[in-house]
């Protein structure tokens, strides 16, 4: 478990990972359990009375089907927020947090390159992220029959899981890159979170303004769920955009990290 920075990072995060898995899957399961109630005519009527703009902004654009409900509720708001928090928190800790705590010096005084340390830590975080998203997918898959999520297949959930994982990876890479390139825990957290909020607004609120619909095409949030992968399957173009941006961010972060001073 203490063989290298990758296994070390996984080992250190074991308790918090269990918490994240339980939390995210719990939120998903809780929403799913409420689907039978949402299906009732009374609830459908109540939801219909909400202004459409608000429903759009909250991603509740189709609540008449189980997949529309899951897209809007589970995968539309709370889970991506949780995943973003996990990703930005982890990405910030990977370099900037450790540096600010003063614990990076000792490791880098060892025969360990900055590239290797960074890549191992990013890989460990991506592994944790995948565990969180896959367990959520599995939990929901197991609930399809008991809860009556008609029309949702394991294949649909797998596609959604791919998008959710890549979405989380993008913000993980963003926070990692800012921390690795510039350093400073507070700065990294603040700027990554700011960008995440902007991305959310760019996919939901800003496109509602006349002439600004195109803005959503720039948002990782739109690449994540804009084309509804739960219904339409993996959107290759958007998936590649998320994966590509992740790779570029990680590479840029490592490149800058190798060229800068480590703060005391």
């Amino acid at each position, binding site marked *: 478990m*203490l063989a290298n920075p990758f296994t070390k990072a996984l080992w250190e995060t074991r308790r918090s990972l269990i918490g994240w898995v339980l939390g995210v899957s719990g939120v998903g399961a809780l929403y799913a359990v409420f689907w039978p109630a949402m299906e009732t005519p009374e609830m459908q009527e109540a939801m219909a009375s909400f202004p459409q703009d608000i429903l759009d902004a909250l991603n509740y654009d189709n609540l008449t089907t189980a997949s529309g409900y899951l897209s809007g509720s589970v995968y539309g708001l709370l889970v991506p927020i949780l995943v973003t928090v996990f990703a930005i928190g982890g990405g910030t800790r990977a370099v900037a947090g450790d540096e600010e705590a003063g*614990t990076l010096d000792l490791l880098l005084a060892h025969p360990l390159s900055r590239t290797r340390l960074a890549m191992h830590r990013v890989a460990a975080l991506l592994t944790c992220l995948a565990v969180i998203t896959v367990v959520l997918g599995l939990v929901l898959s197991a609930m399809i029959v008991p809860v009556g999520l008609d029309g949702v297949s394991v294949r649909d959930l797998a596609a959604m899981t791919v998008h959710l994982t890549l979405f989380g990876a993008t913000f993980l890479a963003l926070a990692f890159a800012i921390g690795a390139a510039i350093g400073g825990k507070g700065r990294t957290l603040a700027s990554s979170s700011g960008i995440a909020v902007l991305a959310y607004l760019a996919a939901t609120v800003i496109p509602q303004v006349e002439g600004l619909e195109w803005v959503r095409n720039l948002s990782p949030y739109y690449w994540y769920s804009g084309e509804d992968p739960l219904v339409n399957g993996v959107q290759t173009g958007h998936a590649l955009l998320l994966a590509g941006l992740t790779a570029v961010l990680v590479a840029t972060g490592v490149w800058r990290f190798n060229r800068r001073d480590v703060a005391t």
Partner: protein
Amino acid sequence: MADNPAIRTERLTKMYGRARGLAGLDLQVTTGEVYGFLGPNGAGKSTTIRLLLDLIRPTSGTATVLGLRPRADGLALRRRIGYLAGDFIVDGRQTGRELLTYLGNLRGGVPRATVDALAERLGLDLGRRIRDLSKGNRQKVGVVQAFMHTPELLILDEPTSGLDPLLQQVFVAMVREAKAAGQTVFMSSHVMSEVQHTADRVGIIRDGRLVAVERVEELRQRSVRRVEVHFSEPVTPSAFVGVPGVSELAVDGPTLHCRLDGPADALVKALGRHTVVSLLIEEPDLEDFFLSVYQHNGGGRDAG
């Protein structure tokens, strides 16, 4: 050996924005010696050490460590170095054993027996979480990780801060053994006493420049010592007036006090004409030298 230095820097300069961390440091540490790197806080000691480890990069100038460049050959170089920072900071949630196993693995594995032997010698409990350890015990973990792979070069940044006097003695013994085993030791401090028992040479840094380099042995010979002698019967001061190196002579019955400058030979021979009951020559306080270099080098010019 002089043409194969363990550490050599040439005009090494580091600017922090407009503030100067190092201003053209020319340093040479010979292979196999213990080098004391002295200066007050903020003089540039840690900056120098962090440059040698490639944690930061110089604004200009070069550094060569064990014949390698910190930037280009960092991995190969750091494999052969043991580093200890004065404020040894690690994640406190792990035990000493876990941390040392991990750090050992980064070096390709360190025999458990070596770690255990060091820990036992320092009286360190490896099974406890680091956050539950006192500052001194935490520092011991740092000492173990710096020594455990028997590196060719030990870079120690104010290493004994936080160690109690007893452990400082153990540490002094460890540094001497490292030297005896052919290891080079580069040790920074802001007090002379931390290095004077082990260092072959001391370099004094001030405002990012080396202002003096001295052999400790020569400093010792040059420095002033206080002498106290008890005779079996009262003596007359005149017997010691004019003895080379002796000043501030004070005789009170069978007791003599004086200052001694330089070699003790003439005084010892003068004492030999009487029956000496006890003789105390104080260890010279090299701190005075350190302070005098500081007071006399107000301009920070190269005097070394």
